[in-house]
Structures are given as structure tokens and as C-alpha cells.
């Protein structure tokens, strides 16, 4: 596989990641969200493997496998179990309506391209053009957390953000050192468990997973 092909594959996978990110932004159903998240993880894992092959950075294979195990298998499974246990079937409610969110998302992508343009000119890596997408994914993840009211969707937004960060790390510098990645992976896993516990608590306290309810915690003046 020569450099050009690799760069094309990398760009394609980056496009898919961004597409799934937008998909999550508009997806109203919670199962759909989890599926999209799984897809995003898979693209990410593939991308990591491709980059590892091209740059002959062999520790990236380990990252790739880790990503596959965690973000494609473990986390979606945990989320499925959670949703099943908590009996959430409703459609996800959004704070801002979907077309507006989409427009904001588009603006964020443009902004990311603008912001990363100086880096694109300086960098020599084949993955340099995907850095803008990575940044856009992070921001869209954050946007998702802002526009959704359901606790589970907020977590998915958070995980999507982490995907974006991971993607940024591979595309900007061919990945972080393995130790760091192992640490991050462990963090993710722990975070998922903690979220699970908190979901149950929020659910029992408020009888709902709508984070708007938490405004009730605020002390009145």
C-alpha cells in the first residue's frame, strides 16, 4: 500500500467519522445513537490500524485493538444493558431544534478548518488534513452534550468527544505513547462504570434521566 492510497483511506475514514458525528447530532432515538457510536468507534479503530501500518508505528496496532475492544464492543454493550435495565424507550429530547444544531455543527467544522490551517501548512504527516476533522468531532461532541437533555445522550456525547481527541492524537502526531493510551483506555472504562452507577442514582432520585431535573438541586435565593 503506497502513501497515496493510505492517505485516501485515511481521508475516507475521517469523513466517515465526521459523518457519524453528524449522525449522532441529529439522531433522535437512543438505540440509533448507540449504533452510530459503535460505527464511529469501528472507523476510528480501522483508521488507527491504517495509520500504524503506513507510519510503521507498531504500538498503534495495540491502540487499534484496544479501541475495537472498548468502543465497539464493551461500551456499546454496557450502554445497551443500561438502557434495558432503566427501561428507556422514549425518543431523545433536544434543547435546540435539529436543523439549528446542524447549522451550528457546520459552522464548527468550518471553524476547525480555519483554526487548523496553520498546522496543516507546517506538518509533514500524511494524516495532517484530518486534524481539522478531529477537532470538529470534539466540538460536535461537546455541542451534543449541550443540546441534549437526557443523561445517557450526554454520556454518548462525552464519549464521542473522547473519540475526537483520540482521532486528533493519531492524526496530529501518529498517536500518543502507549502508556498514555492505556491509561486513557482504562479511564474510559472506569468512567463508563461510574456513569452507570450515577444513572441508577439519578433515576431513583428524580424518577427520570432528564438532566433538566437537576436544576431542582439549586438552592433558592
Amino acid at each position: 500500500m503506497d502513501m497515496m492510497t493510505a492517505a485516501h483511506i485515511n481521508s475516507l475514514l475521517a469523513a466517515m467519522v465526521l459523518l457519524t458525528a453528524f449522525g449522532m447530532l441529529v439522531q433522535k432515538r437512543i438505540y440509533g445513537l448507540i449504533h452510530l457510536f459503535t460505527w464511529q468507534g469501528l472507523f476510528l479503530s480501522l483508521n488507527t490500524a491504517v495509520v500504524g501500518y503506513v507510519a510503521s508505528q507498531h504500538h498503534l496496532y495495540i491502540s487499534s485493538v484496544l479501541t475495537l475492544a472498548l468502543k465497539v464492543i464493551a461500551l456499546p454493550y454496557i450502554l445497551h444493558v443500561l438502557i434495558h435495565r432503566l427501561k428507556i424507550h422514549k425518543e431523545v429530547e433536544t434543547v435546540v431544534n435539529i436543523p439549528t444544531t446542524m447549522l451550528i455543527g457546520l459552522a464548527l467544522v468550518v471553524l476547525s478548518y480555519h483554526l487548523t490551517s496553520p498546522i496543516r501548512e507546517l506538518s509533514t504527516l500524511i494524516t495532517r488534513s484530518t486534524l481539522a476533522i478531529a477537532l470538529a468531532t470534539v466540538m460536535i461532541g461537546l455541542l451534543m452534550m449541550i443540546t441534549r437533555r437526557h443523561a445517557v445522550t450526554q454520556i454518548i456525547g462525552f464519549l464521542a468527544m473522547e473519540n475526537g481527541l483520540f482521532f486528533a492524537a493519531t492524526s496530529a502526531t501518529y498517536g500518543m505513547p502507549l502508556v498514555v493510551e492505556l491509561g486513557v483506555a482504562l479511564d474510559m472504562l472506569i468512567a463508563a462504570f461510574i456513569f452507570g452507577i450515577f444513572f441508577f442514582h439519578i433515576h431513583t432520585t428524580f424518577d427520570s434521566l432528564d438532566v433538566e431535573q437537576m436544576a431542582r438541586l439549586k438552592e433558592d435565593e
Partner: protein
Amino acid sequence: MMLQPLSLAACAIVLLLLTAGSASLYRGNRRLMIMFSFALASVASLLATIAGIWTVGSEMTVKGILPIGLPDLPFHVRFDPLAGYFFTIIGLLALFVSVYSIGYVQGIPANRPVTSLIIFYCLFLAGMFMVILADDALFFLVAWEVMAGASYFLVLFEHERQENRKAAFLYLVVAHIGAIAILLAFGVLAGIATPGSFSGYTFDAMRGAEIPDLWATVAFFLVFFGFAAKAGVVPLHVWLPEAHPVAPSNVSALMSGVMLKTAIYGIVRVTFDLIHTFPWWWGAIVLTLGLISAVMGVLYALMQHDLKRLLAYHSVENIGIILIGIGLAMIFTSFELPMLAALAFIAGLYHTMNHAIFKGLLFMGAGSVLHATGERNMEEMGGLIHRMPWTSALFLIGCVAISALPPLNGFVSEWLTFQAFLLSPSLPAPIMQLLIPMGAAMLALTGALAAACFVKAFGVTFLGHWRGHHHPHVHEADWPMRIGMLSAALTCVCLGIFPVVYINWMDILAKQFVGSSISSSAAAYGWLWLTPVSPERASYSGTTVFLGILGVVVAVYLLLHVRPGAIRRVPIWDCGFEKLNARMQYTATSFSMPIRRIFGHLFSIREEVSLAPQTAHKAFPKRLQYHLRVVDRVWNWMYRPVVDVCFWLSRQVGRLQQGRIQAYLIYSFVTILVLLVFAS
């Protein structure tokens, strides 16, 4: 190692710290703990006093660098005559108060643990000594905070009462706002001394620096603000009448007597030593604030009927008088009149010593009264002179001293300040020609009002009959307390009748800081006659006056007591009314009524008279109730708005707290975006 003042001073501080550390080792043997700890504190104070007297007397300056501090920023110490002078003041009063405390703390009810009192008392003393010794901004501020923190806990000693907690909190807030100002001022000076490095934090570097006028002004006013907050200069005095009365009386004596003096030390050190050249209008501002503090302090003191609050307001007054001296010295220095500057400077510092001793004495006396009667309200006292002859005699000496009556020490320093006012030639600045005579008049007014106030304080507390509803078992103070007060009173007398000796000793300060001395003229006629400038202008002999007064007193006593039948005890003449009771005596409120009428617009006064339910006819009410509330105007004018603005701002900031996760996420999101866009 040769014994020198600095090592003595260091011994004193270490001894105090050790005493503080060992206080918890007595395992509940309260009597032993109190006796040993305060005895050790007395020894340490004595050492400090000796070190101070020695340094001033030998006119030497010793410097040192301590092996502690931050990495590369060790603590510097310096023991020069100015430090020695303040060491003497603090050490002397601390000695008296520590002896007094042996008795006083013993009398605190047994169910209240006093270990914390002892620990913080020793830390407080050590902090004050360290402030004086410090020769760099870092050590100074550390010591300053030790002092402020320890005194906060001392004010909080009886913490179960809400007013005490409020007073302590107010004190802490004011102390810290002041500390921030001092910190900023040192930052300005250090930054100019050595731009771009930290080595300017020593006072030596600041002394050598050429400071531009603008920054010198900024530094001076920051420092003055900071120290004025500590000293209780009007309008920053509000914490003082709250915090001093609620602390245990031995602590009040120290706080009022010497802690305020560390602020005076700071002002003198920074102004005359570190900045050392200044325009005249700084002095004019110091003088004006001193005058306002003196007059307002004494007027508010007159309105009080709580004995310790009254004394606390008098601290405001006396700090004002000290600042008058310092301010005049600054004005004269900048107009290059070193003789007059020396006179004013000596007057200010003399009064610093005097105030420490007589205010300490008065607070100790108030403590004895409080100890014996459990009462702070003068309206409930009276006739204590029969039960507490020692305390009342010693309290009377304090009253005479603070009222600036000859032959005691208060007179000497206020007289010197007057001389500085009266001898001042017409200064080139027109506003000074207005300010100087007016200042002299206000100082005179202050003296008169102070005398009136202490006639009230002594008369209502010790003379007449007991006014309270229930009569407690009143007992005289025990021996350690008496010794403490007696030695303070003796010091007052000595400072009053040997002023020339004292001025000769402290003259080195004037020589060092304002470039002239007054001992050559002041002591020109020997130790007996004090002649600040020349005998044609003014002269005073404390000893002669003392002997004269003593002669008259002895003669009167002999006349009354030697002849039999010269004194007869009979019932009080009741104008034929026959139903006199103790409530019909002159009270503190009624005594100050004329002055309240004259100066009424300076206070916010609320008077209420209400008649109790009628019995037979309107003209014969059974009871009449009179309520009087005198509130510090400054509180409503200055502090209330600041507090309101603070609360308003916090409410506005509180609006950020939506309680919604989305809102918080938006904050971070917007922050990230702004940073990305503008920082890239």
C-alpha cells in the same frame, strides 16, 4: 559567642515559641500551666526589653540572615535603634501584662479551657517581636500574619457568643484588607528596586532604590492604608471598638497598647527609612487623618458606657495624637526644618510609649473590675473605690496620664506635640498655615474632652454607690494583677517626671531618621528642666510639678487625718426627699449628655422615651424608660455601601449558577472557542 542585643531578642522570641509549644504538656494542671507559661512569657518580655534598651542606648545596628524562609529567599533580620525602641515598648508592656495575666487568667472560670489562650498569647507576642525584627518584605508579612492570626483567635476566646464571633470576623477582614495593601506596597517598592527579579524583597534593596515620585506615592498610600487599618485610624477604626472589648482583658491591653503600635512602627519604617524622601502633602494628609482620629475617637469614647469600649475608642484618639506627631515630622522634614522635625518625631514616638503603658494600665484596671464584678457596663457599677482601693488608685493614675495632666507621662508627649505646633514658623504652603493653628486647636479640644471622658469613667465606675440591680461579691484584684498594674503605673510616673533622661536615650532615633536631635537643646538645663527649643520659649520640669503636687496632697492628707474630728461620716444630704436610691446618681449617659447635644450631628443618635402603662393618672407614670443608641456614622456612610455592593456583586455572579448542566457546558464550550479563535 558574644552576647549582643540581637541574640537576646532571638532568645526572647524562641522562649515565647517554646512556651506556646509546651503549653499543652501540663496535662490539665491548670494552675501550674498558667503560672509557668506566663512567668516564662514575662522572662521573655524582660529579655526583649533589655535588648531594646541596650540597642537604643548603644546606638548600634546588627543585621543577620536566618537559615529559614523560602528557597533562595531567606529571612533577613535587623536590629537597629528604631526596632530597639519598639522592642522596648512591646517588651515593657508585655512584661507587665504577663505578670498581670498570672492572676487574671487564674480567675477565668474553671470550666473554660485556657490552653488556647496561652498558646495564642505567646504566639501573638512572638509575632509582634518578629514584625519589628524583620528586614525583608517576606518575613515582615509572615510575622504580620502570625500576629493578626493569633490575635484573631484571642478575640475569639469566648467564641460561644455571637457578638464576639462577629467582632473577630470583622477584625480579620479589616486586618487582611490592610495586609493586602501592605503586600502590594512592598511589591511596588521591590519591583522598582530590582526590576525583573525577586531580590528586591529585602528592605536594604528598597532603601537603596531610586523610586520615581508617582510610584513612591502609590507605595506610601498603600502602606499607609494598610497600617492605618491596623492602627484604627478613622475611618478604618470600626473593628477596634468591636474587637478590643470582647477579648480577655490582658489581651485587650496588649492589642490596644502595643499591637496598634506595630502599625505605627510600619508607617515610620516605610516612610522615614525605606522611601525617605517625600513631598510635604503626604505629611499633611497624615496630620489631617491624625487630627480627625483624635477628635472623633474621643467624642465616640465619651458616648460609651461600656468601660472597655470606651478605652478602645481612646486608642483611636491616641493613635491620632501619635500620627499628628509623625505627620508634623514629615511636613517639617520635607520643608527641611530638621530641628522641628526632630521635636515632632520625638513627640510622636514618646506618645507611642506613653500610650502603650497607660492604655495597658487602664485595660488591666478594667480587667480587674470586670473580673471582680462580671460587669462591663459602667451604668451598673459605682462605689468600687471602697471595695477595690488598689485597682481604683492605679486606675486613677492611668486616667490622669491619659488625660494629659501633669506630672504624668501623657502630659509630656502632648506638650511636646503642642510645642511642635506652636513653634512652627509660617510654612511656604498656604494650606499649612491654615492647618497648623487649626490642628493645635483640635489637639487642645481632644485633651479637654479626654479629661472629661476619664472624669466620667473614673467617677461613674469607682465613686458614688453601686448602681446595679443585684450586688455581686466584689473582691480586690490579687497580687500578680496588682503587681502588673503597679509596675505600669510606676512606669507612667517615671516617664512623666524624668522626661529629659528618656529623651536623651531615644534621641538617636531622631538623629537617624530626620537628621537632627533635640537632646542638645532639650537637656541644656540638666535632667530637671525640659526645654525643647530654648528656655525663653518653653520649659517644663516634671519633677518639680510632681514634688509640688505631692506636697499639696501630703499637706491636705495631714490636715484632714491628723486632727481628730476633721472627717465625719454622715448620711447623704437628700434635700429632704428621703427616698434617694442608687439610680438617682449621675450616670455615664447623663454625664455625657451636654457633649452629646453639642456634637450631636456627628453621631447617629436614636433616643426614645416611653412611659410604662398608666396606673391612676397620666401625670403619675409608674415607670419611665429611656433608650439611647449611638451609632458610628462611619459605619453607615462607608461600610454599609461597600457591604451592599459586595452582596449585589455576588448576587450578579450567582446568576451564572443556573443549576443546569447545559449552561455549564456552554460556558466551557464558549471559553474553548474564544481561546481557540483569539489565542491562535
